[in-house]
């Protein structure tokens, strides 16, 4: 299916061009870093607009199971923050919206064009009851579960989505009207007369918190991701372990069997020049150890083996977390995995170089393999700046003006960045940077406004 741009689609009416609105700060990206930045600025009394391109805020965090090393429930921490930002009197949200253009007119004066995509659902009426979703006849892979299960053409992104209301995916709609007939509100909340809206914003400063992409594991051809159904990636496993998981249990995709011999392959797409990413992704060792521990809890009879090059447990309590995994019986094999083969029953043979035994080529059988994929930069945002260059590093992460003394200010004065938009990092560090960017933003605004 070809996915059309928002300007190519047909609408009930003309695209709406709205009058200019003024804010102190624009935050781009509603993940945990952007949420923290918006909340801190809102609490300081700044008028903030937060733009999120997905139909819900939250980013990766609210899709996770638990968080290392404390093993707190990720959505239990994320959801109240999401609700707080949603209801904050100083923060306006443009959800399901994309920043298209940013032009700097002068210090403290940025003009921004934002496209708000139509949900085809009236957010003031929709109660999130899900009746439309049950009625819709179209089933396509759900991107929030990385395709593990299906969703309908009209769907509620997630049980814990903020806002928890439906959205219509026009590219997969057959215009049957079943959703509208099933909707119990009066009149129905399904509204195909909605059109895209263009917002024109005048803002004093900007925070970029657009996060990261997962490495595309298909590029490591020897692992046959996308071809062997039981080779999955770590986000699949985090979804399988999460309370909002797509299946009723932890099951392997090839035949619905509960796995009992699971392998992890670390550093897939990280520290690897062949895929143009020489960097360590910093979190993969720890999220793999987290998932291994959760699997041991959920499937007590399962064997879990982690194939690693070396374990990087550098943060607070990380080493203890790693030792705890070993004590639980998780097997750690220092070995580089050369290739994976599939047996007829869907089980997998992992060929690896056994580094601690002289580099001997060995093989082991597993019934599920999880690829601990690395983090890659979200490059699109650099293209929206008109007449100014947002500096990025060789891989594409936003480059701060000074990595040591000023790690959240970008090459464009008045534009700050936070979280994984700047490079791979975990949730606590993303939150810290969200706060730091908010502070720098406040200082910048008082400086440039004081001068006026």
């Amino acid at each position: 299916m070809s996915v059309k741009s928002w300007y190519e689609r047909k609408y009930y009416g003309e695209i709406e061009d709205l009058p200019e609105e003024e804010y102190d700060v624009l935050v781009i990206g509603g993940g945990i870093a952007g949420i923290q930045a918006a909340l801190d600025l809102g609490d300081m009394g700044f008028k903030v607009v937060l733009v999120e391109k997905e139909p819900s805020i939250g980013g990766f965090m609210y899709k996770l199971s638990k968080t290392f090393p404390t093993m707190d429930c990720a959505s239990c921490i994320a959801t109240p923050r999401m609700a707080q930002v949603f209801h904050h009197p100083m923060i306006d949200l443009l959800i399901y919206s994309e920043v298209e253009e940013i032009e700097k007119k002068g210090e403290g004066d940025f003009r921004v064009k934002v496209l708000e995509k139509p949900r085809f659902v009236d957010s003031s009426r929709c109660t999130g009851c899900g009746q439309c979703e049950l009625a819709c006849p179209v089933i396509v892979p759900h991107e929030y579960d990385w395709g593990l299960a299906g969703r309908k053409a009209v769907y509620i992104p997630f049980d814990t989505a903020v806002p928890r209301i439906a959205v219509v995916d026009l590219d997969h709609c057959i215009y049957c009207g079943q959703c509208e007939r099933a909707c119990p509100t009066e009149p129905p909340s399904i509204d195909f007369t909605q059109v895209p809206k263009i917002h024109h914003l005048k803002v004093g400063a900007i925070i970029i918190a657009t996060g990261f992409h997962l490495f595309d594991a298909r590029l490591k051809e020897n692992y046959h991701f996308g071809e062997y159904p039981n080779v999955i990636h770590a986000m699949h496993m985090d979804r399988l372990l999460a309370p909002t998981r797509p299946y009723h249990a932890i099951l392997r995709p090839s035949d619905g069997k509960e796995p009992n011999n699971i392998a992890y392959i670390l550093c897939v797409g990280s520290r690897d020049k062949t895929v143009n990413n020489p960097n360590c992704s910093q979190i993969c060792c720890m999220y793999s150890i987290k998932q291994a521990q959760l699997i041991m809890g959920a499937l007590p009879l399962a064997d879990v083996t982690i194939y690693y090059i070396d374990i990087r447990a550098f943060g607070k309590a990380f080493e203890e977390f790693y030792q705890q995994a070993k004590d639980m019986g998780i097997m750690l094999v220092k070995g580089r995995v050369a290739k994976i083969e599939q047996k007829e029953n869907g089980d997998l043979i992992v060929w690896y170089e056994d580094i601690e035994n002289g580099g001997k080529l060995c093989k082991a059988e597993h019934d599920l393999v999880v690829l601990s994929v690395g983090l890659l930069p979200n490059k699109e945002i650099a293209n929206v700046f008109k007449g100014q260059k947002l500096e990025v590093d060789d891989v594409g992460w936003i480059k701060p003006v000074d990595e040591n003394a000023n790690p959240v200010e970008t090459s464009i004065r008045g534009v700050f960045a936070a979280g994984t938009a700047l490079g791979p990092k975990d949730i606590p560090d993303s939150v810290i940077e969200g706060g730091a960017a908010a502070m720098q933003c406040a200082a910048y605004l008082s400086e440039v406004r004081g001068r006026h």
Partner: protein
Amino acid sequence: MSGGVKNTVLEYRKKTGVEPPKELTELVKEINKIKAKITNALKEGPKTIPEIAKEIGMKESLTAWYVLTFVKYDLLEPESQTDEGYYRYKVKG
């Protein structure tokens, strides 16, 4: 706001002249067939995904995807588990 327009999907279709893409209408027909085949296969009693796949002549991984999606949408439910770690599914209700 729908501005008082009733049956907005129908009105949208009339006004824009859009037609559902053929590949999507074919997909919906296929989904309906798969749904019927799976529920039919479960008429005699609960079955595992490999058993359903064999009976309806569909790839195990595709059968797994639909069965687990139908569980999510409350059409099917897991009933019991085999010693090999498979769940048996039945039609809900």
